[in-house]
């Protein structure tokens, strides 16, 4: 098993029944679909929570069922689900699982059994998370950052059991991710096909690979923080708990350090932003290149930018803590390192634009989403420059400006890429084509809708409207226009919310009624489009593994018979 991967089918697990084929499956493609469906389902829960929050913010007082406690619980669960259980799981567990073996020419992940365990543990973590909605006191309302002491102190919604289910679920998620992440990294390093060098891999694989390495180094901090807070809550230790006056009584805890939790949390939390962003960067590069019929501009620079962003993201975490009371000199260091990240990120944005430059652009649905990503990402990145500077961040801290910033840069942007990627690879995954008109309608409502939602939020933030507030009430510094803007945002949000129905109708209808898809409908050069079967069969490549002779971006090569040259075509 050591190095005999070439054309050896023996190491594969061969399913014998429906159950081992589709339920306890060890096939990376089935696991990918299981991961994706679970992630999207729990993501829908978070989407509904956001709609409920917008109902309250846009029309305060009209929905007596939404109490202040509920509102805080919606905020917390929405944030955590979207960041960890939807985006991380979908991009790495879903796309990582599906694309890595197919794009590097492997038959499966190196350890399919561990890969299967990874999914089932992930499902368990989602189930534990969901039980939070049904325990006494409801889910935690501490905000997705779960800062102690308030997260486990009386008065915070869900401080009894909601916080426990959340922390346990996170710890299980970390174990599940570790099992998957080890597989993704080892597969990319050790199981590529003949001719597939690291510098011939599609950028999607580079993004997912780097993000997996980062996950393996960042999630430990979350794991440790979760364990320590569980001890604080259940065993009465004082890791994070100082002496406090709570509810008129002095707490029995003493000498703990709440700042320690923030450092641990953000040592995970900041790399987490790029764990979500890097796969999106990689995937969008491939979408742009394929649909613009041009090689990606500056491939090597794109690879190095991914790696450098990944490395830098480990030394910027305390820019989330400018107002936490840490030593102000730290702010100087972390502001500098934060702004340095703009350099590799700008390289990527320029290279995407230069790939489009004089390209033969086909404005199909995946490409529309890819181009939309460039817009939202530039906007989110620019507002990041404001927040990265200590002196500008301090007044903007905990306002809607922050909400607008991170939703643009790590909410909307990766989600647009995910939509684009699903439309792009759907014909390969299911062998059917979706409806173009419905897809375009879904795109335009979503793209214009997110601007209608998040652009006004920047304005609210600059006015000083605080985030995580149940209702603003009559406050002197908040003008009447804020309430109008909030109504507008809520209406836009509900329209975008409803428009996602178009996506699901399109996907599910096409699954059964869509026309049969061409094996390579976009004329792409990378390996996953060259499988003998569509959808790819177990073992991916039939009897013989493909041999790779060139990079994945030979589009519109002068003199070539077609406007793309597959990676498997030998050089003349």
């Amino acid at each position, binding site marked *: 098993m050591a*190095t005999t991967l070439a054309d050896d089918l023996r190491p594969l697990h061969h399913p014998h029944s429906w159950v081992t084929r589709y339920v306890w499956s060890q096939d990376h493609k089935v696991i990918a679909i299981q991961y994706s469906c679970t992630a999207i389902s729990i993501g829908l829960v978070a989407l509904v929570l956001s709609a409920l929050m917008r109902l309250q913010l846009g029309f305060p007082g009209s929905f007596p069922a939404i109490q202040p406690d509920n509102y805080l619980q919606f905020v917390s669960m929405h944030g955590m689900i979207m960041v960890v259980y939807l985006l991380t799981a979908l991009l790495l567990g879903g796309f990582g699982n599906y694309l890595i073996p197919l794009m590097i020419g492997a038959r499966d992940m190196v350890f399919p059994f561990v890969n299967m365990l990874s999914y089932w543990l992930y499902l368990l973590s989602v189930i534990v998370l969901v039980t939070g909605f049904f325990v006494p006191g409801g889910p935690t309302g501490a905000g997705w950052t779960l800062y102690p002491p308030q997260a486990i102190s009386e008065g915070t919604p869900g401080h009894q059991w909601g916080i426990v289910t959340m922390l346990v679920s996170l710890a299980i998620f970390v174990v599940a991710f570790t099992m998957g992440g080890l*597989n993704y990294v*080892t597969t990319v390093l050790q199981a590529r*096909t003949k001719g597939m060098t690291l510098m*011939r891999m599609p950028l999607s694989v580079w993004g997912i690979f780097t993000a997996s390495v980062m996950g*393996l180094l960042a999630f430990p901090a979350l794991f440790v923080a979760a364990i320590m807070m569980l001890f604080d809550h259940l065993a009465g230790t004082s890791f994070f708990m100082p002496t406090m006056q709570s509810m008129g009584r002095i707490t029995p805890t*003493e000498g703990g*350090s709440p700042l320690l939790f923030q450092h641990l949390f953000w040592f995970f939390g900041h790399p987490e932003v790029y764990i979500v962003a890097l796969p999106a960067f990689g995937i969008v590069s491939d979408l742009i290149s394929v649909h613009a019929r041009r090689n990606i501009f500056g491939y090597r620079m794109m690879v190095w930018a991914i790696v450098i962003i990944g490395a830098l993201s480990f030394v910027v975490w305390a820019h989330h803590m400018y107002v936490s009371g840490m030593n102000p000199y730290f702010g100087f260091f972390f502001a500098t390192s934060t702004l340095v990240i703009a350099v590799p990120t700008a390289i990527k944005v320029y290279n995407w634009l230069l790939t489009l430059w004089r390209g033969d652009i086909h404005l199909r649905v995946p490409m529309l989403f890819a181009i939309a990503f460039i817009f939202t990402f530039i906007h989110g990145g620019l507002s990041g420059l404001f927040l990265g500077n200590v002196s500008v961040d301090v007044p903007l801290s905990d306002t809607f400006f922050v909400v607008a910033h991170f939703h643009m840069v790590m909410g909307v942007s990766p989600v647009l890429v995910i939509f684009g990627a699903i439309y792009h690879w759907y014909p390969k995954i299911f062998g059917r084509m979706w409806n173009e008109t419905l897809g375009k309608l879904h795109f335009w409502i979503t793209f214009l809708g997110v601007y209608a939602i998040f652009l006004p939020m920047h304005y609210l933030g600059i006015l000083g409207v605080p985030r995580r507030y149940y209702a603003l009430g009559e406050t002197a510094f908040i003008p009447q226009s804020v309430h109008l803007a909030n109504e507008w945002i809520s209406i836009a949000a509900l329209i975008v919310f409803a428009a996602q129905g178009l996506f699901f109708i399109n996907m599910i209808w096409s699954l059964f009624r869509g026309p049969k898809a061409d094996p390579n409908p976009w004329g792409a050069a990378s390996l996953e489009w060259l499988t003998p079967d569509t959808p790819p069969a177990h073992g991916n490549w039939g009897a013989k593994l493909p041999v790779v002779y060139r990079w994945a971006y030979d589009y519109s090569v002068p003199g070539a018979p077609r406007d793309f040259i597959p990676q498997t075509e030998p050089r003349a």
Partner: protein
Amino acid sequence: MSHTVSDRRDREVIAPTLREIAADWSADQEVFRHTHWGKAMMWIFLLSDTFIFSCFLTGYMTIRSSAVLPWPNTAEVFALVIGGQKIPLILIAIMTFVLISSSGTMAMAVNYGYRRDRRKTAILMLLTALFGASFVGMQAFEWTKLIVEEGVRPWSNPMGAPQFGATFFMITGFHGLHVSCGVILLLIIASKVARGHYDRTGDYSAVEIAGLYWHFVDLVWVFIFAFFYLW
């Protein structure tokens, strides 16, 4: 003179090594030539696990420096009275010695595994597991003494800072869990060695992979020993 020596070393040792590394990373199929997938994966896992223990230990150091009550003197707390004589850190010294010795027997087991010596490999692995189990046993004794005689609890500590007990039980507990898992892993693989499983597959890599994990657990202990007991 010394100039030319270092030049020669550059030319003959460092440059070819760098070229080899560059060749490995720019090759197709594998970055680490002829490396068992499991071994590569274990190395990557250990890197991740390093971050877990680093977070635990930095967390401990932060908490220790910010604790408001005095930290107990570890030389006193972890002393045993033997023959009327109070000897500081004696138990921990024995535990450390046992664990380091087990790394030695593990290394020998890996060596005999490469030579396909079924009997010696199995015996040395069993010996390693025995050392590991006795380490966990002594740790249980230490915990009992601390809880029953000294009255240390995760939430309180009669000798001062309550964080002393909390960090002690958490970090040594997490490490003890690692050792226990290692003992189980060693027993499983040793029994497979003894039954000739790896002779049939012709691949003794599992012994080396278990060895990697075992050495890592020992190495972590050295840091815990230094930061918790000697500080």
